[in-house]
Every structure is written in structure tokens, then in C-alpha cells.
């Protein structure tokens, strides 16, 4: 390490460039299709609604995008039967 490196600020442009490239690759792929997460959310909601009555708020769908892999997180809360009347009462 050169002593003058101590005075150098780490350059931020390469980071900016890389972040943009990853982000735009994703945004361009999805530009033509409607929002995937909201489609999934609606369809999951429809499947659940066939069997259990739940409120929209009990279903959380989120997507975490990675460079090589993305994770889809689905969180569904089904209220217990005994809790339902209370929820309605409340």
C-alpha cells in the first residue's frame, strides 16, 4: 500500500455503475410484463379464498432480488376460528 493511498478517497463511480447495471437489467426484463408480485398476490389470495376467508391484510408477498437468485416470501396469517368472532366483534 502506498502512503498516498491514505489520502485517496475510494471512488464511488464503479459502485454506482454496478448497481445501475444490475437494477436496469431487472427493470428492462420486467418492463413489458405487469408487476409479478401483485399478480402472484392476487392469485394466491384467490386460492386461499376458496377454502378460508381471510382479509387482504393477512397476506404479505414480497420479492427480494439477488444477482443470481431471488427469493419470494409469502406470509399468510389464517386467524383461528375462535378468534374470528372476536375480530369481527372488535
Amino acid at each position, binding site marked *: 500500500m502506498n502512503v498516498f493511498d491514505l489520502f485517496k478517497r475510494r*471512488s464511488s463511480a464503479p459502485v454506482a455503475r454496478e*448497481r445501475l447495471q444490475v437494477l436496469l437489467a431487472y*427493470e428492462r426484463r420486467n418492463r413489458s410484463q405487469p408487476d409479478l408480485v401483485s399478480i402472484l398476490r392476487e392469485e394466491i389470495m384467490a386460492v386461499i379464498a376458496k377454502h378460508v376467508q381471510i382479509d387482504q391484510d393477512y397476506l404479505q408477498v414480497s420479492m427480494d432480488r439477488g444477482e443470481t437468485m431471488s427469493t419470494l416470501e409469502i406470509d399468510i396469517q389464517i386467524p383461528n376460528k375462535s378468534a374470528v368472532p372476536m375480530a369481527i366483534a372488535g
Partner: protein
Amino acid sequence: MGKVVVVTSGKGGVGKTTSTAALGAAVAKTGKKVALVDFDVGLRNLDLIMGAERRVVFDLVNVIQGTAKLSQALIRDKRVDTLFLLPASQTRDKDALTEEGVGEVIDKLRSVFDYVFCDSPAGIERGAQLAMRFADEAVIVTNPEVSSVRDSDRIIGLLDARTMRAEQGEQIAKHVLVTRYDAGRAARGEMLSIDDVLEILSVPLLGIIPESQDVLRASNLGAPVTLSEPLNTAAKAYIDAARRLEGEDLPVVVPFERKGFLDRLLGRRAA
């Protein structure tokens, strides 16, 4: 038939209006008939940058609604007599513009002028889409900065999907104009380089406008920088960009900063 050029960006504050005025004036100075159309209904500013704010009587919305003739609404520039401005309305809302009405006005302008520059409002909503709708070419104004580049990419997507030309299966010619470029910061790796911007957007470069106090001064005075101070570097960069827009094959020189010994030693500006 004249050429319709939309000046757009997605992001606000990157220099669309300043660039519309500077490019339009530079083209008009070569003797071409040029119309500048402000599409920013409700937030017009092109009149102010052109120094014509006190001469506005009728506007684009009046013409579309038939309360004024196009010839009544066009304001002739006092410095260059082939340069005209069609201001936006300040009072009405954006819904006052209809696609049909805008199409008719653009057709009329196209038949009279060599160049019609459409100054787009920021955003990707209706106003921005109407500004680009009938364009043959697009100048995408971009600052070398992440949010501006991202929004430019969005706008490029819209240009390729929502313009009349795109819908008819034709190409709309696109050019990137990098504004507020700071050579020193780019050299120190603190700002996206021109190569970065071009590689990410993959659209050819129209020009690089250095960050300059002269541009601000020109706005203060109400004169496009290409008319008020044609010899300074930003104005020269605009004039070159205008020549490229007219099809001239002019190489782009990336502005650079001369470094002193100490700067070189420390790899950054000593101050």
C-alpha cells in the same frame, strides 16, 4: 417536412428546458426555422429561459381549444428571427392537452418549420407522453448520476413503446445529451463516466455539456447560452451538439481537467 425532436429525461432538474432553448437557438442561428414548444402545462418555464415571459398572450392550450390561432400564439425571438416559441399554459391543468389536438398542432408546425423542439415535462405521465408522441427524434438529457440514468432508461423504454413511430414499427432516433458534467469529479471516480452512461443506456452520444456558471447566468438573463455567450465552453458544447443533431459527423471530446503536481500526487483536488 420539418423534424420533430422531443427533449426529455424522466427526472426533473437535469436541464431539459435549458437544453431545449440552447439547442433550438443554435439550430436557428444557422438559418433554419425553429419552433420551441413548451409541453409543461401548469409549470411553464421555457418562456422565462428564452426571455419572452412578458410577451406571452396565447398558449398551446388556447391553440388546441381553438381560442387562438397558431400564428397568434407563436412568439418570434427578438435576437434570431427564425426562432419561435409556443408557450405552455400556466393556468390550466394537464388534462387540457388532448392527443388529437397536440397531433394537429405538431402537424401544422412540421409543415412550416424545419425543426420543432418539444420541451417535455418531467415524469412519465401524460404530459411527458404527449410531448414525445409525435417525435421523429429524441434528445435524452441525462446527468451522470444514478437516479438520472435510471430515469433516462425508463424514458428510453417509453420512446420505444409509446411513440407514434414505435407503434408504426419505425425507429425513433435517440441521442443522449449528458449535462452538468464535472470533469474533475469524473476523473476522481466520484461521478459516472461518459463511457459508463453510454454503456448502460446504449444510446449514441449527442454531446457533453460541462457544469457551468455561464449556463445559470444565461438563464438569469433570459437568453439561451448559445446566443448570449456563444464562445464559452458550455455554449460551444451545445452548438456542437446541435450540429450533430443536424447530421454532421463531429467527434465528441470528453472535457478533462488539467491536474497540478499536488493533485496528481494525492489523486484528488488539493482544495
